[in-house]
């Protein structure tokens, strides 16, 4: 299932939700101890910090405060163990993909895609490992937010900040 908001204009606040299948995606469903929201990124690499910035916002607004919120630079194979204790997981990551205009939410399925290096492993591979090793499979979604610059510098670019604001506005409408 792909709940795409790829074509959202950045002036999303004025858009109608009815146009998007995102309307059934709710943060409230993550506000419990069996949920995990996992920010991936690095705040020292400009827009790579988008995933963590989303977690910052959740904490500031005290949203999903019953869920486990984590920030990590990258996925590790041990995350198969981490997600095995949870029923619902939302990964949040930045993307360079031009096909994502603002943000995108998609449901992921397990797949052993053999992408492993000591620095990178895919979420579907983590899920497949969880399934193989721990005999369970949580419900996993990925929120990707479009970023533009990945240089060694702190702070989001203006456009990435706008995209983050659009994401936040969307979820604010939901909770507000």
């Amino acid at each position, binding site marked *: 299932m792909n709940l795409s908001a790829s074509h959202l204009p950045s002036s999303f606040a004025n858009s109608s939700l009815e146009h998007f299948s995102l309307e059934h995606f709710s943060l409230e469903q993550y506000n419990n101890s069996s949920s995990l929201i996992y920010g991936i990124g690095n705040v020292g690499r400009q827009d790579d910090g988008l995933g963590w910035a989303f977690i910052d916002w959740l904490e500031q607004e005290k949203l999903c405060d019953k869920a486990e919120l984590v920030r990590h630079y990258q996925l590790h194979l041990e995350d198969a163990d981490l997600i095995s204790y949870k029923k619902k997981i939302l990964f949040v990551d930045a993307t360079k993909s031009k096909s994502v205009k603002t943000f995108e939410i998609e449901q992921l399925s397990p797949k052993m895609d053999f992408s492993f290096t000591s620095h*990178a492993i895919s979420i579907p591979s983590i899920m497949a490992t969880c399934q193989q090793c721990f005999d369970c499979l949580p419900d996993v979604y990925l929120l990707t937010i479009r970023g533009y610059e990945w240089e060694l510098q702190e702070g989001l670019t203006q456009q990435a900040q706008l995209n983050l604001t659009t994401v936040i506005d969307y979820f604010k409408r939901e909770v507000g």
Partner: protein
Amino acid sequence: MSRKIIIDPVTRIEGHGKVTIHLDDNNQVIDAKLHVVEFRGFEKFIQGHPYWEAPMLLQRICGICFVSHHLCGAKALDDMIGAGYSTGVSMLPTPEKMRRLAHYMQQLQSHVTAYFYLIVPEMLFGMDAPPEQRNVLGLVEANPELVKRVVALRKWGQEGIKAVLGKRMHGINSIPGGVNQNLSIAARDRLLKGEDGLISIDDVIEYAQDGLKLFYEFHEKNRQQVDSFAEVPALNMSLVGDDGNVDYYHGKMRVVDKNKEIVTELDYHDYLDHFSEATEEWSYMKFPFLKALGREAGSVRVGPLARVNVTKAYSDDTPLAKAALEHFHDYTQGKANDKTLHTNWARSIEILHSAELIKVLLNDPDLQKEPLIITPPKSAWTGEGIGVVEAPRGTLLHHYRANEEGNITFANLVVATTQNNTVMNRSIRSVAESYLGGKAEITEGMLNAIEVSIRAYDPCLSCATHAMGQMPLVLSVFNAKGELVNEFVR
């Protein structure tokens, strides 16, 4: 027609490197080189920073062996403020044991990563297996129970490092003169007994033996290949304690030869008197060597294989590792072991040794005591410090100088992978001659054999902790005119 083969980048190592192999008209190996093409410049950009930032900033060189860099830097700062070994001051018991505990936990964690994630897949599936199979995800499909145990080991190591250093990565516990916290009883008990999703330390020791068993089985089935693969001569170097056996945290630098005779033993504060570094225009990585012996004869091997060659015996409080080391020594009948793939044997012994050392320390009540820090008078300031530890990959050195304002003016880091530069190149040459020499057709499996020789050293070519995506392997074959005649991408 002579040919040049390039493996770029080498995969499943920390950082980026490439290999070039030159073949003559008869496909015999003319030359083989490991090029390190990554440049990070940490020694330069630390200059001007306050001295106390050094162990915090410089550990970010690496996302795997950051604890070693952190502790090495902290030891250098102990010297600098007049509370270190160079000034005749011994660290207080609690901070020294806290640092050692962090160090052993990282060695466990790092070795488990290198061994099970990067090396074991080749042991189980073979060097010729398809690349999509010979990695840890292939292992997940083939042996999920083993992977489950490895994940539990890694998780225990990560949680242990977090408990001791304050963070899972790039910790903040070691400060000049000591540490900023001891280990709470709750944290100790969680690590000892295994609570809240963690295995117990006894399980850690049991699981740690998996590596050794795997190596024994692999060795039994492939004895000729394992023993003859890249057997290259080198001196062996390790930090040793007063008993002459490895001390991962502190000691003298001892170098032994093939007969395990001591070639030299030095206080690491005098390293500049004993070591020099050669450079080559084709690599950013230097080539250290003992001045007295010259570049070729004076190059040393460091890391697991070197340490078990230097060490005569482990102590009685690590009985499983002690027995494993005796078996290792018996295999070469008292001589130093130069077999590159036996580095993985040594690494699996050190996984077990680390686990047993950790158990001893976790049961030491000093970890809950105080004081935590020595604060010398301002007049004790020396403005210079050198730290050395045995990092998982081998002997690691940090050397700093600071001005009267306390800002760093000089930094020199000699990392284990640099020490191994010459012997790694020897290994590559040996494998290239054995596997590629005289062969008209170069297969993917042959090229992987080159990578296997490199991975045995678990080299950290300045780890790119923030690398994104998959690192591709590109193999290009050029003729004598520099024309591309073939290319492999994986």
